[in-house]
């Protein structure tokens, strides 16, 4: 553990620390930001009302829309002279939001990412290849600062240039990789196609921290077997701070949330009601020490579940499940709510289908049409038409029975579906915005 006194804190002491910090954070937001002052007042809330952690429920939510409306600097709570950096969200689901960092915020974030690297078994001994994009996206610089904080040797290669990535893994003795899970698979694909002499098992690569997009257990198995490494899920969102909000430990059974720095709640996305621990719903974040952009009850739109299991790693921190979907990405197809991750899980269950797929949603007349394109590789290809048809029918039948939607299944050639260095584009929604 990078911060053992915090990460393995006794729960009652942790709660005390959270309450003290919550009081500071809410007051800081109220006193130094006009938007928070306005929404708190409109909800009849004043920072003096926070006497216990349960009083968090009195505070109004902060939505993504409010963040966009206040872009770029409307949610800053410090003077610009104290802001040392800005980042921006990737804007995959709409307009980008801008977040700022004071020097202390950068220090906090570096510590979070150092904890993340340590949680995945990394240390000062590691050579960390950061293949997340550098720039406004928080992935690259977040991993970079965390790597330096823990004392690892950081290779700041950024995303793309796959042939060069592989050469550096081999020649620079990279032991730890940080990138999106789809890019890790992309690297394995590239090596198999263009560098037949390249063998991951002959390199020093041992572990990787993968995040910035949802991925499944099957993808973990694929990455671990093809790259010969341990693959850990890491999580974060730029609105809250960037990567480093939570991460898996050696148990790989959920992501520990760094609760000494962020309070988390699970709510019903439809009603906003706080749900008991163990329920699935939207995760809501409250920062406890951030200076520039305090987030008070920020609705992440990420769907997950919180649980405590007395983890063998020694951390007392709550665990969140892998994010199983975003309420933003939720597709409503003929009135049925569907997450792309559900489609992915279903495809992986149907024997032999590799996880390269794309969902296209369109509207024909008054009805929604959904088409799922699935790449056919040699493992599932048959020279018999009846076998190929049976595969498509099996996928369609599973979609009907488990998701309740009737989809057209189209079998396509490998590489028909675009794979980039960044986030895989799994869903194309051609319907007009409502």
């Amino acid at each position, binding site marked *: 553990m990078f911060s053992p006194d915090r990460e393995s804190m006794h729960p009652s002491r942790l709660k005390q620390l959270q309450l003290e910090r919550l009081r500071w954070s809410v007051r800081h937001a109220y006193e130094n930001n006009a938007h928070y002052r306005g929404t708190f007042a409109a909800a009849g809330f004043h920072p003096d009302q926070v006497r216990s952690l349960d009083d968090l429920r009195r505070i109004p939510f902060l939505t993504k829309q409010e963040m966009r409306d206040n872009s770029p600097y409307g949610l800053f709570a410090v003077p610009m002279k104290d802001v040392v950096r800005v980042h921006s969200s990737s804007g995959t689901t709409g307009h980008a939001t801008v977040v700022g960092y004071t020097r202390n915020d950068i220090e906090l974030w570096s510590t979070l990412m150092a904890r993340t690297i340590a949680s995945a078994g990394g240390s000062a001994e590691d050579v960390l290849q950061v293949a997340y994009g550098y720039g406004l996206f928080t992935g690259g610089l977040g991993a970079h600062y965390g790597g330096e904080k823990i004392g690892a040797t950081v290779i700041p290669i950024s995303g793309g240039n796959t042939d060069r990535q592989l050469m550096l893994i081999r020649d620079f003795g990279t032991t730890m990789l940080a990138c999106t899970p789809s890019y890790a698979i992309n690297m394995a694909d590239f090596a198999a196609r263009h560098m037949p002499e390249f063998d991951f098992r002959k390199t020093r690569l041992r572990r990787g921290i993968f995040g910035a997009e949802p991925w499944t257990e099957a993808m973990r198995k694929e990455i671990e077997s093809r790259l010969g490494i341990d693959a850990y899920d890491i999580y974060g969102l730029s609105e809250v701070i960037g990567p480093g909000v939570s991460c898996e430990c050696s148990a790989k059974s959920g992501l520990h949330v760094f609760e000494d720095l962020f309070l988390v709640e699970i709510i019903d996305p439809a009603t906003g009601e706080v749900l008991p621990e163990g329920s699935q719903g939207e995760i809501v974040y409250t920062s406890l020490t951030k200076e520039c952009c305090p987030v008070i009850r920020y609705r992440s739109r990420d769907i997950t579940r919180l649980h405590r299991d007395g983890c063998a790693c020694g951390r007392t921190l709550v665990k969140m499940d892998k994010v199983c979907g975003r309420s933003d990405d939720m597709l409503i197809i003929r009135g049925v709510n569907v997450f792309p991750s559900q489609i992915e899980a279903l495809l992986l269950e149907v024997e032999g289908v590799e996880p390269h797929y794309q969902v296209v949603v369109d509207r024909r007349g008054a009805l929604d049409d959904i088409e799922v394109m699935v790449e*056919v590789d*040699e493992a599932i*290809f048959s*020279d018999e038409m009846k076998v*190929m048809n049976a595969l498509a029918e099996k996928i369609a039948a599973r979609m009907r029975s488990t998701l309740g939607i009737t989809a057209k299944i189209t079998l396509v050639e490998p590489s*028909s579906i675009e794979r980039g260095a960044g986030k895989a584009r799994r869903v194309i929604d051609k319907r007009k915005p409502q």
Partner: protein
Amino acid sequence: MNITQISVFLENRPSRLRQVLQVLADRSINIQTLTIAEVSDFGILRLIVNQPEEAYAALKASHITCSRTEVLAVALEDTPGALLRLIDVFSSRRQINIDYMYAFVDRRDAHSIMIFRFEDIEAAKQALAEEGYTVLKQAEVLGQ
């Protein structure tokens, strides 16, 4: 003797077939015969070529989804009723199922050559032997 057929997955889009043919032409691989099974979105191209292993390796190297399939080739008199008598070998009492079949004309003489894909290729071979049919070797199919 089994014959190696190359089977290729093709999306039903312009230039997909062309790409496959280009790969084969670039390596001077000759196509003896071919057939395509298709549905609306995709097809399965089945090829008998003079160098099946080279063809398979070249297609794979070009990231084209393909496989090698064992099929049987049988020479047949080009006369009325010849195919019926041959099919009877499988269907009458043996109940050997044919997955698919196609035909072309032997370049050496006026024989037809039938290509068969069976569910149970060993049972089919045994049946043909029992009824006095000879299965052709790869070289014979190629007219060599």
